């Protein structure tokens, strides 16, 4: 076997050293494109996922979100939960929120929205809401008759303006009538308009936590969610366990748990495209590698016959083509990686703009790269071995003289 490997390496080495360089360049070019095809689209989709999951973290869910158990609408003792959570080492900040359904009316324009009751001062450490006020100001501790509305609802969104119903050019200072899901009506002055370029944000509205408590007649300390930010990103799972150990018996999710569900739904189509693209890319890649190597081998059929005729074992011949094809694919992967990383650099500087304002930067997924490299190398061995094995089984006369 060692002799077979040595001879296989000699044949492959001489073929690489003195073979047709133009053919080599062409093969490497095609293989680099196959590699690109395998990794580029998933990277773009990865970029979209990161963008959307970033939104999830910055707005509705924080790093960790605690929600009511079972069919309960509220966490009944949210203050107690907050106390326990804040005592956990590694927790940077936490707040409670109350989400309710409502319709908002302004000059006979009516839209449905989720209104979130927040404790304004706490939100500065929890979310980006206070920082995305494009007009007016964020809520304050005394904001009881004021509301923040999303730019889509206000009719000032340049991104989603034509897709959703809106209140018709509502501005800071405008008065809007809110009818809550329990039928209670309140009139609020628009204190600010927020724009996060994200539908889950821009379709929402926000009032003071106490206002929701008051409207729904809730006992003190009820919440639909408790949102937590932690000191060290990446330790969410560990922190989740710590919070549970601290005696919190409600449902605890990391942002990833929540995003995964939402992103899975939101990006179901993209995911299907991604899967199809990977599958088709793999099949096309495998077929191309096989064709390239097979054509190469057919051109060398006579050489294979000669090698057999002088006593070189079929195993050495098959190994030489496995080495050769591994070399082609390795160089192809290398060229593909350079091409891929160049494109990644380009798109980091010039991101793909989505909905006019959302910038998608493709993500380099190391696992995806490793998987793609391993897949292509495996394919290369199969693609190099199968045709060579098939030709090496032919009779010497047929291989050399075609009969």
């Amino acid at each position, binding site marked *: 076997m060692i002799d077979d490997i040595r*001879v296989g390496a000699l044949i492959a080495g*001489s*073929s690489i050293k003195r073979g047709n360089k133009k053919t080599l360049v062409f093969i490497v070019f095609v293989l680099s494109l196959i590699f690109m095809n395998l990794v580029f689209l998933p990277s773009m989709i990865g970029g979209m996922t990161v963008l959307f999951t970033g939104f999830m973290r910055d707005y509705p869910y924080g790093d960790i979100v605690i929600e009511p158990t079972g069919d309960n609408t509220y966490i009944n003792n949210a203050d107690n939960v907050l106390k326990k959570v804040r005592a956990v080492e590694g927790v940077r900040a936490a707040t409670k929120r109350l989400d309710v359904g409502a319709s908002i009316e302004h000059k006979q324009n009516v839209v449905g929205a989720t209104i979130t009751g927040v404790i304004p001062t706490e939100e500065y450490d929890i979310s980006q809401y206070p920082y995305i006020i494009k007009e007016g100001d964020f809520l304050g501790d005394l904001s009881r008759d004021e509301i923040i509305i999303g730019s889509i609802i206000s009719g000032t969104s340049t991104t989603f303006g034509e897709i959703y119903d809106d209140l018709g050019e509502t501005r800071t200072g405008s008065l809007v009538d809110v009818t809550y899901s329990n039928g209670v009506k309140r009139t609020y002055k628009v204190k600010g308009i927020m724009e996060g370029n994200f539908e889950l944000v821009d379709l929402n509205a926000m009032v003071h936590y106490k206002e929701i408590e008051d409207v729904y007649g809730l006992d003190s300390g009820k919440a639909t969610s408790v949102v937590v930010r932690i000191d060290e990103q990446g330790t969410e799972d560990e922190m989740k366990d710590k919070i549970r150990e601290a005696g919190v018996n409600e449902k605890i999710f990391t942002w990833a748990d929540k995003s995964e569900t939402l992103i899975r739904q939101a990006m179901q189509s993209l995911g299907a495209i991604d899967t199809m693209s990977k599958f088709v890319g793999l099949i096309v890649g495998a077929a191309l590698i096989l064709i390239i190597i097979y054509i190469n081998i057919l051109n060398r059929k006579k*050489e294979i016959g000669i090698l*057999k*005729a002088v*006593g*070189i074992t*079929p195993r050495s011949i098959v190994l030489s083509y496995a080495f050769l094809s591994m070399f082609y694919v390795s160089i192809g992967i290398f060229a593909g990686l350079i091409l891929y990383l160049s494109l990644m650099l380009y798109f980091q500087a010039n991101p793909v703009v989505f909905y006019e304002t959302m910038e998608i930067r493709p993500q380099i997924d190391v696992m995806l790269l490793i998987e793609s490299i391993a897949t292509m190398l495996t394919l290369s061995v199969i693609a190099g071995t199968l045709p060579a094995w098939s030709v090496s089984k032919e009779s*010497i006369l047929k291989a050399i003289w075609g009969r």
Partner: protein
Amino acid sequence: MITVKDLKRYYGSGDMTVKALNGVSFEINKGEFVAIMGASGCGKTTLLRILALLDDATDGEYTIRGLKVSSLPEAERSYYRLTQVGYVFQDYALINEMTAAENVYILSMMEGKSKKESYKVALEALDKVGLKDKHDRIPDELSGGEKQRVAIARAIAKKPDIMFADEPCANLDTRNSEQVLEVFKDLNDNYGQTIVMVTHEPWHVKYVDRVITFQDGVLVSDEWVEEQ
């Protein structure tokens, strides 16, 4: 050394059967330089390919030093081709991407010798055919005669029992043909190499000991050549 008994090679079947070899028998002893001659299509190349284990006989028996090689399984035939038989092709059949030395020493490496040792063997073989100084040339950088001499070096490097040559001068001019035949003669005279060569050139006869002539797949004459 070589015993061929009632060897047959048929192609096709029924009325379309072509009898390339139709019951050939002869013996060749160690150290002989034999020319197999005859008109095109008489079966001489078919015979050589069977003797060199590149093709199978339809019927008959063929032994080398008493071993019935015609019935060996492919793996053993491959090993036999590697270690016991040298074959020189009409069109040189060198690997174009390998240097002269690599074309020769690949076989020694296949036999398990180290690269250094194999290289030494290759240089010795190339020296015998007068091409030691061109060991690093690839076939495209050699003349037709030189290519054929590299092919001979490849065949003799492993010191085979028998060397077969299929019209080795067919693509060469007279001067290059003479060089190649001189190499054969030298190997035969000085190293006792058994050589079986297919040729259709009458003037090649002066280099060989014996001439076997074929016609329509049948051996028609087997004569010793008188020393001139």
